[in-house]
């Protein structure tokens, strides 16, 4: 039984038994090569749910505060390993009600970076299929190409430490092998390149990268752990903390606010990065933040349900500052 069959079965069962009002999973998009979030309300409709290497959406986004509709709805949701960490981060701070959730953990072998594929072709991708570590892509004009899966994985997947859901009520199929987390520290080599730049080079890079930001709020809306999105300081006009001017300074400040406000909760799932319409590497920014948090506290956000995020706690024996 494939993971997809498991998901459909769990969804059908929960809907039939009335344990959930609706079930959130992934379904095929209009485009054959794209997967979109699906909200299934009846057991008869579970066959639209899919699981494949394109299911990158973090569905926990739809659970965050003020989002569920109706307000008291009981919701079933599918989570990958990284998604489950955002869910646990919300549960740690009691920002969502565990009793209203039914969580299906989906063991994940890594998700394909569709944007990376798109850049390989001049025309539109119409089919993506994956088997035995090879990814075959076909375009509308008949171009076909095959890639090794490792080459086209999302950045977040290449260094994944939690391929299985950290917290789930049911698991869709046997878990994938876990990496050795106790023996090996997280690999932060992806941020080393930027870190090695001088101060002036960093400023120049930021200027170049962030001047593209259009402040569309996609990163903030899609972020599962950015929870006061309806009262965001980024939107506040009185007091006006981020000006409406469109300079790089304002754009950078906008992103920094997002980063600092999810510190200790963000597991760098990469949802912001994938949502960004101008392809700002937000993932790296959040990785850097998590690197420093790991360095300071040995803390990985959203991994243990009985833990509180480090910035909600203090220890009188902390050794920071002079």
């Amino acid at each position: 039984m494939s993971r997809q069959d498991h998901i459909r079965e769990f969804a059908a069962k929960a809907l039939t038994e009335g344990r959930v009002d609706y079930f959130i999973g992934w379904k095929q998009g209009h485009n054959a090569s794209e997967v979109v979030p699906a909200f299934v309300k009846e057991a008869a409709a579970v066959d639209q749910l899919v699981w494949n290497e394109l299911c990158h959406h973090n569905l926990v986004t739809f659970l965050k505060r003020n989002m569920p509709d109706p307000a008291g709805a009981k919701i079933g949701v599918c989570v990958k390993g990284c998604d489950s960490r955002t869910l646990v981060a919300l549960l740690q701070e009691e920002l969502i009600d565990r009793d209203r959730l039914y969580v299906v953990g989906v063991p994940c072998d890594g998700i394909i970076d569709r944007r990376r594929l798109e850049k390989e072709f001049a025309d539109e991708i119409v089919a993506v299929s994956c088997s035995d570590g090879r990814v075959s892509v076909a375009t509308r004009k008949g171009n076909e190409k095959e890639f090794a899966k490792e080459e086209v994985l999302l950045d977040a997947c290449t260094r994944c430490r939690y391929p299985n859901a950290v917290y789930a009520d049911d698991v869709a199929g046997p878990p994938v092998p876990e990496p050795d987390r106790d023996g090996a520290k997280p690999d932060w080599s992806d941020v080393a390149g930027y870190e090695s730049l001088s101060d002036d080079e960093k400023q120049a890079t930021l200027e170049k990268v962030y001047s593209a930001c259009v402040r569309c709020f996609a990163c903030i809306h899609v972020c599962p752990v950015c929870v006061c999105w309806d009262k965001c300081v980024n939107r506040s006009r009185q007091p006006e903390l981020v000006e409406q001017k469109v300079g790089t300074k304002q754009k950078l400040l906008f992103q920094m606010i997002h980063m600092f406000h999810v510190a200790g909760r963000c597991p760098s799932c990469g949802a912001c990065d994938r949502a960004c319409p101008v392809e700002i590497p937000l993932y790296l920014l959040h990785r850097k933040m998590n690197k420093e948090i790991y360095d300071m506290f040995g803390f990985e956000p959203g991994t243990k349900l009985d833990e509180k995020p480090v910035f909600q706690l203090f220890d009188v024996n902390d050794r920071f500052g002079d």
Partner: protein
Amino acid sequence: MADTTTTEAGGAAFEAAPGGNAAAGANVAAATGDSGDRPVKIIGIVCNWCSYAGADTAGVGRFRQPANVRLVRVPCTGRIDPLFALKAFEKGADGVLISGCHPGDCHYSEGNYYARRKFELLERLIHHLGIPKERFKWTWVSASEGQRWQKVVTDFVAGVEKLGPREGRAL
């Protein structure tokens, strides 16, 4: 924006460091001489109970100190959002100095314990943004430590003056 104007002390938020006026003239001249165009502007964010009073003690004690620091008084370091420092840099500050009660002495018992975790992360990420170490400092100064305040401010301002004003930066 007030990027290039050297404001008179007096806005609701910015106050001249107490007692700093005696040294103002000499210092402004020195700063102008070093950096070419204008004296450096530094935003100090201090807690009401310790560091603001400490700055006052330094003033009452007539300790000479640079007048480049504009103080923003907050109830407690726990009130300081990392955003405050970034906002100051965005608005054209050349340096940001944060100070509060020593750990264990917080007027609200534990505000600064929470705060120092945030400041540590803030400091690391500010450097990640390409803002040099010398432009950001957080420390503890108690109400009675006028001399320590003088030293902290003097050393910090000297560090920032060495780099000069920040112009045309991303943040």
